[in-house]
């Protein structure tokens, strides 16, 4: 197979890879050695820029560019914060990566901190993953004992302290400024921007916040060069991406793919998802975590122009929101014909209602409203006008909030109605049948492939 290049998960199956010894035997920490001994911080930034790697947390902003925005006033400390608050429904890659390969993240943190000139860096892990926090803390102790952390690392004069910070259970803390607030011991209310964290972040100091997976790519980039990394992938989607695959597929799990892999291959080949479970067929896909627009199977497999889609930032967003979606965080949820889209949409809307921080009015009030309306429709008390009401409320939230949670709450609902309106209407016209547990509207055949 062409797409077997593994950058992050190459040694995932090596027994004991979570320990320092085994990780080191497999070539671990050579990236730190190279960066600290042979490269200047700016040269590391330059390599990351050349790699074209884009933020893996969901927004897909080029990481090198984000780094280069970091303000560097004299005498003010700078911070690197790793965003390990992975909570987007459908996404569990960071959980997997930190649990299995803690040293890969730590190595990335050391190199990245060096590049940014940070002497104290934080890994903010969602509190539910306390066992992963203990794994990371153990790995940090090991790295410190081996001389890769602490004072005067490898005799280069560079000092770094790594702190693992637990969250307390809040999806919103995955938003970078909410994360910083939380790290300061406050409620996870996103900040008004500007100022951006690159200028005023943690403790009002310049700060970079990067996703776990993004930071984990850095050691490979340093070892092999940014240009090598940029050769992997397709167009502006360089490198590999971890995809968290869940739902009605034969082989759920975390897969590393080369960006640009045809979706057909990802979904159906035995190397990845292994196809839809026996006797069923694909109905809909959420390609990048619950906030991205849901697509019916035919629009997921092929663009509206009939071209086969690829697993890349550009290909998945082909057609805009009318017929496309987003790669997002790579939370791939496949749903077969037994899935009730209305129920699923209600479920997602409940999630966003529950997770809204409540700071700004459109999100605070709108998410609750949408959940209540969807709950009514799903439970047989909906009206036809409710469907358009949902579309309108979603539109009034989208783009009008402090942080992207408002958008994330609006998109799944707007897209579900866009592509599965008949299913919502069926719930309204057949309240008795539709509200029975497990009841699913049977679409015309062309909706599925």
């Amino acid at each position, binding site marked *: 197979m062409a797409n077997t290049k593994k950058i992050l998960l190459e040694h995932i199956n090596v027994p004991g890879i979570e320990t320092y010894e085994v990780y080191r035997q497999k070539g671990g920490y050579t990236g730190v050695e190279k960066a600290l001994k042979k490269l200047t911080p700016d040269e590391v930034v330059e390599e990351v820029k050349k790699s074209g790697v884009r933020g893996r947390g969901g927004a897909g902003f080029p990481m090198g560019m984000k780094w280069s925005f970091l303000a560097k006033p004299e005498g003010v400390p700078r911070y690197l914060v790793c965003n390990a608050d992975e909570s987007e429904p459908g996404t569990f890659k960071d959980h997997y990566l930190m649990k299995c390969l803690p040293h890969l993240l730590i190595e990335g943190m050391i190199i990245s901190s060096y590049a940014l000139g940070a002497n104290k860096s934080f890994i903010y892990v969602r509190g539910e993953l306390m066992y992963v926090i203990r794994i990371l803390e153990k790995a940090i102790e090991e790295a410190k004992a081996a001389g890769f952390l602490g004072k005067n690392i490898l005799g280069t004069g560079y000092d770094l302290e790594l702190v693992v910070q637990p969250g307390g259970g*809040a999806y919103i803390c995955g938003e970078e400024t909410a994360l910083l607030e939380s790290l300061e011991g406050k*409620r996870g209310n996103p900040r*008004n921007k*500007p100022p951006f964290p690159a200028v005023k972040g943690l403790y009002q100091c310049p700060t970079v916040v990067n996703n776990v997976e993004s930071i984990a790519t850095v050691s490979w980039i340093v070892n092999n060069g940014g240009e090598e990394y940029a050769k992997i992938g397709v167009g502006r989607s360089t490198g590999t991406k971890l995809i968290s695959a869940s739902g009605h597929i034969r082989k759920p799990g975390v897969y590393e793919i080369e960006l640009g892999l045809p979706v057909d291959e990802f979904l159906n080949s035995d190397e990845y998802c292994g196809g839809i479970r026996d006797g069923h067929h694909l109905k809909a896909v959420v390609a990048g975590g619950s906030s991205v627009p849901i697509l019916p199977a035919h629009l997921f497999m092929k663009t509206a122009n009939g071209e086969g889609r690829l697993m890349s930032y550009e290909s998945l967003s082909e057609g805009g929101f009318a017929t496309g979606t987003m790669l997002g965080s790579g939370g791939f949820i496949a749903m077969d014909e037994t899935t009730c889209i209305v129920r699923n949409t209600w479920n997602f809307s409940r999630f966003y*209602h*529950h*997770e*809204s*921080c*409540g*700071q*700004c*009015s*459109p999100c*605070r*009030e*709108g*998410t*609750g*409203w949408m959940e*209540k*309306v969807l709950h*009514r429709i799903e439970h047989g008390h909906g009206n036809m006008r409710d469907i358009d*009401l949902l579309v309108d*409320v979603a539109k*009034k*939230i989208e*783009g*009008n*909030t*402090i942080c992207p949670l408002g958008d994330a709450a609006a998109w799944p609902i707007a897209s579900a109605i866009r592509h599965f309106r008949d299913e919502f209407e069926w719930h309204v016209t057949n309240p008795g049948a539709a509200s029975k547990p497990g009841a699913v509207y049977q679409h015309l055949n062309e909706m599925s492939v």
Partner: protein
Amino acid sequence: MENIAPQLIKVTIDGKEVQVPAGTSILEAARMIGPEVAPPAMCYYKPLKGTGGKCRACLVKVTAGSEKDPRPMPKLVASCITQAQDGMKVENYSSPEVIEARKGVVEFLLINHPLDCPVCDQAGECHLQDFSFEHGTGGTRFEEDRRTFEREDIGDKIQLHMNRCILCYRCVYTADQITNKRVHGVMNRGDHSEISTYISNAIDNDFSGNMIDVCPVGALTDKTYRFKNRVWFSKPVDAHCDCEKCSGKVTLWYRGEEVIRVTARKNQWGEVEEFICNTCRYDRKKTSDWTIEGPMKVARHSVISANKYSNKLVEKPSFALKYAAQNYKEVDDDRPYDKNLSEIKKSEDYKALMAKNEEFFSK
């Protein structure tokens, strides 16, 4: 340093140009032009540092970012927290997109807000009333159960009606910035967020009463004034005293000869510039405690200015209507809409309506 004049930048809002010091927010620039272009603000409060950005009432459209980079901003921005740039062009009331978004914000703020204006002490000086009147719609599309909370006394002088709260956080900033110790805050999250002390805790310090003044709605009300009067029946008078704790500059609210309430003075935008102490607010309710300066300036359209004149001077609206009806002459020409009008006139509904009208005016 004081001797350096601030750099002035040019901003255009709804087609009106203004020169403002660099660093001024769009909202403050708009206020400098005047109320006709100033966006509404439900959470922003200039005297309190850090407020703003939350209610989204002040969203505006930036059609040109600056002279240097004239690209429009992709989304509507909160004007209270967005700095104006030199050459920036902003649409506020002239943008249908802004008006539509604001309609949404009013709706969001109202879906869980009780319709208890008739019994709410804030009615008549409520910013949410003004905001809804200006930007809202007549009906509601919300059919669900409203979120409710219990009423709570926070201290012996302040009552909290959480149902009415729009979570502007102003009272939290007030407690943080002008009192020595904050004991209340925002608990829980999402649409369950509430202002609370969590454990039953009285807010008692010399400046706690200012929370009432900064509250844009009737969530925090003065217990000593509760149900005493409607604001449009009282006469506000500016007064001062020599107070050892605060500036002593207040507004006294009279009913007849009795001072029924003391508040801080508010500017054109409803903001308190000089906070007052609880002694002035609660304990100085005799005219003899004060030096009267004169009537408070009230905007002509404000409901507070109503009922200040005797009936004889004001003609009743029904009379005016009747007068207008008597003088009304039908214009007969052949403009296109007239054809439709004549069609309408033939309809039964129209005839019934006219008959009703006639009956009404003949009485």
